[in-house]
Structure formats: structure tokens, C-alpha cells
């Protein structure tokens, strides 16, 4: 099945999300769709899978013009989407999730699971997915859950699969396995649209690449003939420098000391299991690991947001195990939360309000009981400028900024004061290349000024680019440690450690 997008334009009010897009999706091929966040990738794919109807242009399937009134019609036409955020019922089995919405029922409304189970097994075998139809979703690792999403789409007999940022949740090994699956789908004649902003992956997997910027296709090409810098330039619109500039590693005294730290998850399970490590001034310690191995709980415990069950956290010699978040803030500990939307920002608040979210309570922003908004606005404008937060004014709601600008706002708030230690969780997740480079630069500047940094990221490349020392977390423990400045580190080794292999 060959799908053609012809001259698609999609507007939201005055905002043009896609402008005159032409794209052909060929059976048996992987089309890599590359673009920064906010470039219009998702909108385009939502047009294709029937969630939005385009203002102009048309979709053709095998030369026939089609119109989808909703996702249901697109699925019936053979176009299925695997969303970045899985849409699975955690307490249901694989087979139950697969038939959700199209439940085959027999007499007396009896649910017929038998056919679904055998069909899941068949699809699983055919494409090498290795999924047990009777497994409960919440017991499965994310990588397998993703395959369930793929089975869902295959079960609905899709010929075109749209994969939206599919590798975001996977370990390097899982990514390799995932690529195997994508290739076997291609061999079976399926057409794949692979959406990503990661250059390496798109070069690895695609048969053809289309780059989208500001809603328009700015280039298409053959991955064998394209180089990384060219693609990046196409995507961003200007040349990109990939290397993180770093001064020589000059570690100072120990600033943060963690001793036998144990922290629980909300449900009482052990999240951080008796770990100890130290961070020195002027040192970046990177925590690598697949999401969900205790990194979030570790960060929250260090920021004073999660109770420490046992063990001790010392900052510059003082015991801060029981200190409140505000006390830690006063000591010069900055915290860039993992989830900027949920924890880093208040979307309905203005840029200025967000800029003082953790410093509003003291001079110069307030004296006595009231806040000096005049001062807040002037300072916020200056800091926004300094940190390249692109906003029409400081009175704009944070929710109206792009992801990159939102994150730069959080980074600006946290780093624009006198800091001594920086805790950063997924500091560049989902951001565009330009914002990533900017944020990396700022983090390295903090290091070079003598701050200690603890960076948690599920992007191994990011950990490797920034860290002076790398710790790998698996099931709440530190299972491996690397010092790149002593000896070169092999990415594959770290990947194995992330997956729990003994090193």
C-alpha cells in the first residue's frame, strides 16, 4: 500500500503547523521523518492517522483520494499509529489490550479471547516479537509494552505503521532489537514512518529521510548519501556544533557525599537501595540507566522531596538528610526537575512568575508580605534574555512557550543565581538540537565555575558527552562506574550494565 500526502496544509487559527507538505510512503520501506520538537511532525502524522483533517491538500492511498473523518477510518484504511505514550491498560493482559475497542463477542455478550490470543501468538512469531498473549501489561518491561502497541496496530491489519519517537524509552540494546523488528516488518511489505529527532537512529534505520522544519519539508534524501552535520543543519536551519566544549577536569573538594542511602517508592518498594557515592566541586557525575531504576527517587531524595529511609546526605560537610527543599535551595543547590511540565513549571503562570517560583519569598523579590512585581519583571526579562528564552514578553504564559524555551526557562531559574551544586534530571529530554546545545553549554559553565553536578539522563550519548564520571543505576543500585578521563569508555559496556549484566 502506497500512501501519498499531497500539498497538506494544517492551520490552527493563525498558526500554520504544516505548510504544503508532500510526502510519499512506500511499502517495504522505512521513511525517517526528522524534525525538532514543534516542527510539525506530530501534526502531520495526526493528519495522516485521521485525528486532524487538513485545511488544504489531500491524502491518496494507491492513487485514490481518501478523507478520514476520524482515527477509526484511518485504521480501517490500514494506517496505524504507535504513540510515544503507550495507550495500554496496565492490569489487562496483552490479548485483552490488543482487542480493546474491537472486542469480538459471541452469544450472550461473551468475550471471545481465544481467537485474539492465537492471533497475538501468530503475529508475535511472524515478526519475532516474543510477546506472551497472557502476560499482564504492568509486569512487562517498557520495551515489550511497545511491542504490544505494535501488535495492536498489526492486529487491526495496518499496512502503514507510524512510530512516534519509539526509541525514547529504550536501552541501547533494546533499540537494536527494536530495529530488527522494524526491518522484519519492512520485509513483510509494511510501510513504516519512523518519527524522531535523533540523527544516529534515523541514519541507521531509514531507507529514505524527510526533514521537516517549521511545518515544511525542507529536504529529503538517501541516508547513505547524507552525513550527520548536513542533516542537523537541515533540521535546525543553521550549522550545529556537536561537541560539548569543556575545560580540563579539575576536581575540587567533595561537595556532596551520599552514604548508604535508601529511599522508597510511593508504593513502599525500595527505589534506591543502599547506595553511596560522592561528587566533587567542578565534577559532573552522570547517572546512566534505563528509566525506572531508581534515578527519579534518588534525585527527589537529594532535592528534599522524598523521605530518606536510612543513610545520610552531606553537603559541604553538613548533614542535609532532613533539610527541606527550601533550605537546600538556600544552600545553593539547584534542581532541574525531570518533568518540566509537571514539576518544573506552572503552565498557567507567566514567564516572570515561573522565573521566581522558588525565590519569590526573599529579597530582592519580596520584603515583608508582598512581592515586588516590578523588580520581578525587570529581572525576569534580563534573565530570559541571557538564557535565550524566546518569549514575546515575560507576561506570556509558560504553557505558550515551546518545549525548548520552557526548559531554558527552568534552567534559567535554577542557574541564574549563585549555585554550588546542580541536580539535573533529563535536562534535555525531547528538546531540539539548538536548545540541547545551549543547555549543555550552561551546565558545563556551572562545572567550570566550580559547581558539582549530578546529571541523570536516559540518553546515554548525553551522559557520555557531559560526565567526568559515569555511574550506572540498575534496580536501585549502582552497578558500574566509569571515569572517561582515565580510560576510554565503551558505550556497549555501559549499555550492558544498564540492562543489569554483571560487569
Amino acid at each position: 500500500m502506497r500512501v501519498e500526502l499531497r500539498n497538506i496544509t494544517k492551520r490552527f487559527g493563525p498558526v500554520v503547523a504544516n505548510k504544503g507538505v508532500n510526502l510519499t510512503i512506500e511499502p517495504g520501506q522505512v521513511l525517517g521523518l526528522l524534525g525538532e520538537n514543534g516542527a510539525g511532525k506530530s501534526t502531520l502524522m495526526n493528519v495522516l492517522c485521521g485525528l486532524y483533517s487538513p485545511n488544504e491538500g489531500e491524502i491518496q492511498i494507491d492513487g485514490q483520494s481518501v478523507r478520514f473523518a476520524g482515527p477509526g477510518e484511518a485504521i480501517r484504511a490500514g494506517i496505524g499509529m504507535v504513540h510515544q505514550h503507550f495507550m495500554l491498560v496496565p492490569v489487562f493482559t496483552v490479548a485483552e489490550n490488543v482487542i480493546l475497542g474491537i472486542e469480538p463477542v459471541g452469544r450472550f455478550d461473551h468475550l471471545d479471547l481465544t481467537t485474539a490470543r492465537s492471533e497475538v501468538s501468530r503475529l508475535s512469531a511472524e515478526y519475532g516479537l516474543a510477546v506472551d498473549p497472557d502476560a499482564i501489561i504492568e509486569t512487562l518491561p517498557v520495551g515489550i509494552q511497545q511491542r504490544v502497541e505494535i501488535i495492536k496496530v498489526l492486529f487491526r491489519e495496518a499496512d502503514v505503521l507510524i512510530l512516534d519517537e519509539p526509541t525514547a524509552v529504550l536501552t541501547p540494546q533494546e533499540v537494536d532489537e527494536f530495529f530488527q523488528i522494524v526491518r522484519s516488518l519492512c520485509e513483510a511489505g509494511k510501510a513504516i514512518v519512523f518519527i524522531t529527532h535523533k540523527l544516529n537512529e534515523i541514519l541507521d534505520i531509514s531507507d529514505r529521510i524527510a526533514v521537516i522544519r517549521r511545518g515544511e519539508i525542507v529536504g529529503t534524501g538517501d541516508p547513505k548519501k547524507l552525513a550527520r552535520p548536513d542533516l542537523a543543519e537541515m533540521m535546525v536551519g543553521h550549522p550545529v556544533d556537536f561537541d560539548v566544549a569543556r575545560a580540563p577536569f579539575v576536581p575540587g573538594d567533595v561537595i556532596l557525599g551520599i552514604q548508604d542511602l535508601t529511599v522508597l517508592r510511593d508504593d513502599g518498594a525500595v527505589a534506591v537501595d543502599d547506595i553511596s557515592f560522592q561528587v566533587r566541586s567542578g565534577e559532573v557525575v552522570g547517572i546512566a540507566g534505563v528509566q525506572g531504576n531508581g534515578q527519579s527517587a534518588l534525585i527527589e531524595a537529594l532535592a528534599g522531596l522524598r523521605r530518606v529511609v536510612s543513610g545520610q546526605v552531606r553537603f559541604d560537610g553538613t548533614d542535609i538528610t532532613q533539610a527541606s527543599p527550601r533550605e537546600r535551595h538556600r544552600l545553593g543547590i539547584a534542581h532541574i526537575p525531570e518533568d518540566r511540565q509537571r514539576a518544573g513549571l506552572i503552565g498557567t503562570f507567566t514567564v516572570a512568575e515561573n522565573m521566581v517560583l522558588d525565590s519569590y519569598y526573599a529579597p530582592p523579590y519580596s520584603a515583608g508580605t508582598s512581592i515586588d512585581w516590578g523588580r520581578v519583571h525587570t529581572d525576569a526579562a534580563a534573565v530570559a534574555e541571557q538564557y535565550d528564552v524566546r518569549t514575546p514578553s515575560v507576561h506570556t504564559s509558560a504553557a505558550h512557550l515551546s518545549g525548548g524555551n520552557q526548559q531554558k526557562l527552568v534552567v534559567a531559574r535554577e542557574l541564574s543565581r549563585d549555585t554550588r551544586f546542580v541536580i539535573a534530571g533529563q535536562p534535555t529530554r525531547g528538546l531540539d538540537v539548538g536548545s540541547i546545545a545551549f543547555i549543555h553549554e550552561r551546565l558545563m559553565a556551572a562545572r567550570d565555575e566550580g559547581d558539582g553536578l549530578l546529571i541523570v539522563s536516559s540518553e546515554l550519548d548525553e551522559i557520555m558527552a557531559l560526565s567526568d564520571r559515569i555511574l550506572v543505576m540498575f534496580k536501585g543500585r549502582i552497578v558500574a562506574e566509569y571515569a572517561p578521563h582515565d580510560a576510554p569508555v565503551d558505550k556497549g559496556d555501559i549499555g550492558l550494565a544498564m540492562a543489569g549484566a554483571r560487569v
Partner: protein
Amino acid sequence: MSDMTDHATKGRLLGRSKVEDLVIVPLFALVAALILGAVVMVATGVDLATIGRSYVALLQGSVGSVNAISETLTAALPLVLAGLGLALGFRAGLFNIGAEGQVVMGGLAAVVAGVALGDLPAVIALPGAILAGAVTGAFYAGIAGWLRAATGAHEVISTIMLNLISYRLLDYLLRTPLIQKEGRADPISKSVPEVAELPRLLTFLDPNLRLHAGIFLTLAMVALAYWLLFRSKLGFEFRASGENAVAARFAGMNASLTIVLAMAIAGALAGIAGANQTLGVLGRATPGFSAGIGFDAIAVALLGRSHPVGVLFAGVLFGALEAGGRQMQVDAGVSIDLIGIIQSLIIVFIAAPLLVKALFPWGFRRDQTKEGGS
């Protein structure tokens, strides 16, 4: 730079949609409610002439004379006061259903304090009585706040229960010797001495005009609530916690303290609303003197979009409906319950802006700007 112009346009359109939200939607909601109210009257066998007469009476009774305006404002004051408290709570993410109980406790405490301070000059007795109402209301609401902060007990449940307790507590206290009027067997409090009364303001025009000094108190509270919400540190914490409790906690704000303070301040305002009634209108406390003010105030706070100025206007509207409704009953013989129906319909329409926009499409910008996906 086209990026920037996009944002600028967006900003302006947002301004427009704010106006729609705050002014046009409520206005059309009122119109729609009045129309549907007429339909209800037709359905219950009221003839068209009477319907016409009742709406004329509604207008006359609310704004048609000095007396009407005085009645409208008198009815509006406690609604605005209690509504302000609820609005603060809503902003802090607390759905406080307990204004009714706080009005009861505050109103009663004001009477008790007023009686106790009856021998002192008015400059002490009156503020003392109001303060007693505020403190008692704050304490009563603070219970629910503390339960929420310390144990996680949801404030909707605990405040509803505290309302029920307050009614029975009132019945009981009104029969205790300290409070009950001498020589009476029924539950009724001693009368508020003159020094503790909120003086009537328009008696020079007509001794029957009931508008009292509570209006100054109310306007002062509107200003105070505005300052608190948008200028003070505490208000910043309230709004942050209400909009995104996780981010507020991550920014170092103390969630428990915020909850207790927001509830206490809401209770203080509801307590002042109760004091406003007992000291300004009723002159004593009787069973059921709160007359559902605390519940109507929820509607007022919602209609006013939890904004102090919005609450002021919404309270006046509800006061007008109440005063006009009484006139409607007298002139046209239409049940006052119809006013309850119209008030409820307004809220339903406010809560369903899309419905209002569908009913009056020409009142709104056609091209709806949705946030574009990435």
C-alpha cells in the same frame, strides 16, 4: 522572527478570549437562563402575561428603586464575602463546601462577642464582634484544612460534615443560658446591642432601607482578597499550589501550611459573612439564620471565576436575583423557587461555555484558536 509575531497574535487573541470567558459567557448564560426560566413557567401553566409581569417585577425589585437597590446590595454582601473566601480556596486548589458552616459559626460568635462587649463603645465592640466572627470561621474551616494536610482527609467530605455539625451545634448553643435570650423557651439568641451593630446607612432617606455599613467591610475585603491573591507572597503560594501542586512543592513551598492557611482565610471571610448577617441584618442568631448563603456563595465564586472583582459582580447579580425574586413573588405570584431555578441554570450555562457559544454563535469569534500540536 515570524516566531515572535505568531506569539504576539496569539497573545492578543487570548486577550479577546479572556473577555469572552469573563464577560460574554456569563452575560449570555444569564439570558439563556432567563429564557429557559420562561419556558419552565410556560410548562407549569403560567400564562404569557404573567411571565412578562414577573420579569418586569424581577427588574423592578432588583434595580427599580432605591429600596430595590438597597435590598439587592444587602442580599449581595454576605454572598460576596463568603464567595471571596471560597474563591481563595479554589485558587489554592481546595474545594471548600463548608462556607455554610463557617457562616453559622462566625455569625453566632459575632453575636456572642457583640453581647459580651455591649458595655464598651462602638469603636471597640463592633470590630471586636466582627473579629470574633472571622476568627471563629477561620478556626472552623481550619479544622478541615488541618485534617486535609495532616491526614489527607478530603476537604469536600470534611467540610460537608462540618456543615451538618454546625447546624446542630447552633441549635444546641442557642439554648444555652449564655446565649439564649432571657425569658425565651425557643432557640433564639440575645439581641446584638446597638454598639455592636453594623449601622444602617440610608435611614435618612427612608427608615426601612436595610443597606448597612457591611458594604464598606465587603469592599475592603474585595480589595484585600485582590491584594492577597495577586500581590502577596501567600497568594502566590496559594495560586501556585492550586495550579500545579507538584511544581509548588518542587519549588520549596510548604503544601501543608498552604492548605491550612488557605482554608483558614476562606473560613475567616465566611465568618465575616455570618457576622455581616447577624450584626447588620438580623440583629440576633436563630436556627437556620445562614439561609444557605454558604452554598449560594459557591455559585458566586464559580460565576466570578474565583477572581475577587468577578466575585463582587457575581454576588451583586445573585443579590439582585434574590431581591427581584421576592418582588416577582409579590407582583406576579410566581414562586420564589423559580429564582432558584434561574440561578442554577446560570451556573449550568457558565459551567458549559461551549453550550453557550453554540446557542449564541454570533456573540463569539468564529475561528477557534486551538493550541497546535507539535
